[in-house]
């Protein structure tokens, strides 16, 4: 073993001597170039950091498909998708600023640590100029923090917590997806019409930060309608069998159950709630109702029949008939054979928005890109007129209220859009108390 090492070292020593003449010392990563990972050659590298293992792996896979599609469209391959309907026309299908778009992928494992390690390797090893993706708020916030420190742009994927653009917002981070406050604001009027203003709500909430922000948002929105919140019960993440949290609901006089769960937890809590006959129950002369504020079509599939007639909100759905959505569904469906999910849609938009901002800024410098994105108004990406607000880097756009479809015509046709809530109705002041406590800070170019 030692012998082997000696020869190895010998080789390296000679290598170092001959190489010394060519040495290009660059002290600190930011020394030579103007900003982190300034693209030098004819290509630019984007980092797609999505969950490939763990509970959200399917969502990650769908995000990855959308990213590949976006890269194709940016490089001028395929049918161009939403580039044709996007209101900004600076992208020409020749990559970004004439540089061909390349990408690297990584696995977040839906763990902050692993996600950061993966993002770091993209930045340090592969020279990624922008990191994007993810399917949970914890990961989004952790990676957003990393990108801020490293001096690259972070375009968040699926993250619904208020904190991402609230108390944990960062100058280098941008979110296209909607948030828990918007879910509440969009759902409340619909719920009032459907169920009246005299209801008693019982919350079951996943016991971590996303769950709490959603519980807070929904409770506030429904209490403003005149609903009473009977109880807010925290459930452990990945509880599996929710029976012991469902049965106490039977003992109260609550007539609405709000499930602040996502992913597998949502599937199981909803399945259990239906099993315990909650939907057939009559309380105070009213029919008992269940609400799932954040719906995801991919996840809803796991709950099967149980989602029928249940209301929730979603960022986007493939059945929308506007031009942008249809263009996206067409190119995605043609390539992969099934319609895209909301996660796929949001990351596709994020990639286009980033590329567009670079093109408008005429530079890959994160600070120039951030400036181009701030206050940017656009249309044609499926959610109507949208504003990337400068104060907190949150997109303000229409939010969909959906319902589990009674008679699905295919395995993808699980949700129907009940109402498209206009952006104005879900807009809040930048200093809204639910989003207070953080500061964007200054953009960091590395």
């Amino acid at each position, binding site marked *: 073993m030692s012998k082997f090492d000696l020869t190895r070292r010998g080789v390296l020593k000679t290598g170092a001597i001959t190489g010394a003449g060519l040495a290009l010392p660059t002290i600190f990563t930011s020394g030579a170039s103007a900003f982190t990972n300034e693209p030098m050659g004819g290509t630019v590298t984007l980092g797609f950091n999505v969950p490939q293992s763990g509970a959200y792996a399917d969502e990650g896979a769908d995000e990855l498909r959308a990213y590949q599609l976006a890269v194709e469209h940016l490089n001028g391959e395929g049918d161009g998708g939403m580039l044709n309907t996007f209101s900004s026309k600076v992208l020409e299908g020749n990559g970004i600023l004439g540089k061909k778009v390349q990408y690297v992928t990584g696995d977040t494992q839906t763990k902050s640590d692993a996600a*950061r390690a993966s993002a770091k390797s993209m930045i340090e090893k592969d020279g990624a100029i922008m990191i994007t993706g993810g399917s949970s708020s914890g990961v989004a916030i952790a990676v957003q923090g990393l990108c801020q420190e490293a001096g690259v742009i972070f375009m968040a994927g699926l993250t619904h917590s208020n904190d991402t653009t609230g108390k944990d917002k960062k100058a280098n981070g941008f979110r296209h997806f909607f948030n828990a406050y918007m879910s509440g604001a969009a759902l409340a009027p619909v719920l009032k019409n459907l169920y009246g203003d005299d209801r008693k709500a019982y919350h079951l909430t996943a016991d971590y930060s996303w769950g709490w922000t959603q519980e807070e948002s929904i409770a506030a929105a429904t209490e403003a309608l005149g609903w009473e919140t009977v109880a807010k019960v925290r459930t452990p993440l990945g509880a599996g069998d929710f029976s012991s949290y469902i049965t106490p609901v039977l003992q109260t006089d609550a007539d609405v159950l709000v499930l602040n769960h996502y992913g597998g937890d949502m599937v199981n809590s909803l399945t259990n709630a239906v099993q315990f006959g909650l939907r057939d129950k009559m309380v105070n002369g009213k029919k008992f109702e269940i609400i799932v504020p954040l719906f995801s079509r991919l996840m809803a599939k796991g709950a099967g029949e149980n989602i029928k007639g249940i209301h929730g909100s979603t960022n986007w759905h493939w059945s929308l008939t506007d031009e942008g959505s249809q263009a996206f569904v067409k190119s995605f469906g043609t390539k992969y054979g099934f319609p895209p999910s909301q996660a796929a849609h949001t990351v596709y938009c994020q990639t286009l928005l980033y590329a567009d901002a670079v093109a408008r800024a005429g530079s890959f410098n994160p600070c120039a890109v951030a400036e181009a994105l701030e206050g940017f108004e656009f249309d044609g990406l499926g959610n109507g007129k949208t504003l990337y607000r400068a104060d907190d880097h949150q997109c303000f756009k229409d939010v969909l209220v959906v319902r589990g479809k009674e008679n699905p015509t295919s395995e993808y046709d699980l949700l129907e859009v009940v109402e498209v809530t206009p952006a104005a109705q879900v807009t809040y002041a930048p200093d809204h108390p639910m989003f207070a406590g953080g500061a964007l800070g200054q953009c960091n170019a590395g």
Partner: protein
Amino acid sequence: MFGLNKKDTTFLLIVIALTLFTPILMQPFAEGSGLAQFNGGYPDLMQKVAIFGIFAVGFNILFGLTGYLSFGHAAFLGIGSYAAVWMFKLLTMNVIPAILLAMVVSGIFAAAIGYVSLRRSGIYFSILTLAFAQMCYKMAYSVLTPLTNGETGLQLSLDDPRVLDGASEGHSLPVTNIFGLPMNASYKLEALGHVFTFNVGFYFSAVIAIIAFYVAIRLFRSPFGMMLRAVKSNQQRMTYTGLDPKPYTLAAFVISGMYAGLAGGLLAAMDPLAGADRMLWTASGEVVIMTILGGAGTLMGPVLGAGVIKYLENIFSKINEGVLHQWFSFLPDGLEDLVIWIFARFTGEGWHLTLGVTFMLVVTFLPGGLIEGLKRLNKRIKGGSKKRDKYDDPDPEHRPEPGKHVA
């Protein structure tokens, strides 16, 4: 030298050399070549290998010497990280106090958990440690969020007091440093088409790893280490000779917990974020597996195991189908698709499969871990039987020879 015998000194020197040249050794392929994907010489991975090396070496002090299999060691790693990040938030961004506090706090936790858990042995001990660690994880994820920031993980913010550093300048977060030298500073050397990155954080971790390794060698060779081996081989006999094994095992548990805390503190020093996931049982399982994969009871084995697992996790998970297409584009279409399909099952989203298969193959064909494989290789190269080192026993468990049917 250093109070070691000649053989150990050589061994330590080799380890030092290997560690210092890691940025070169882990970057064997030229930039832009198809194999550059396999280069691991970027700061984050090198730091992780060094840090998890420390973690595994520490774990091995307990498991390799005493045979007590702790299934909750990740708790100490997590506690160390939290302690370190709190130090960064409250006191200073200098890493020294943070790492010291990390070791102290995890040492205290280790003493408490060890004192209780060591009342039982065998699998009862394992489950006790597992239960404590899972409790730490669950609490950190939910109820203790004010202290741990739950799901997202504890991170720095602009309005932290940092009393020793004075008012923070500007609007960007300060970086961890050692007396002003930032951990994320790197020196890049381009030579012969290779780019070598020499990173302050890595060298800092590496130096600590070498010290930790040196301490471990001294421990293994000391009378204390001998006593721990006695605990493993026959506790009853030890008790009959009038020795109480308890204090020895507890000391080993605390030392090993402090190693984990040190590793946790270093993780936070390299990247000031501490997530609860670090304490999950799978993280505890990971260090067990690193140790067994490399070779339990050997000095170098756990480090090797840590390196292999971190390398697989970080490199294999990034080989997506696009990369495979570039590699195999020279093949005819049908064949290319087939080859890519096969490779895609083991890389990218399938990297876990590679991990699982590696575990099974190594443990089936190399009882004694990767270090055993290296020894066999060495033996074959040297072409003769070498005298066995009486300390680095290839069969530290004194188990019966495996039967012929072990394929």
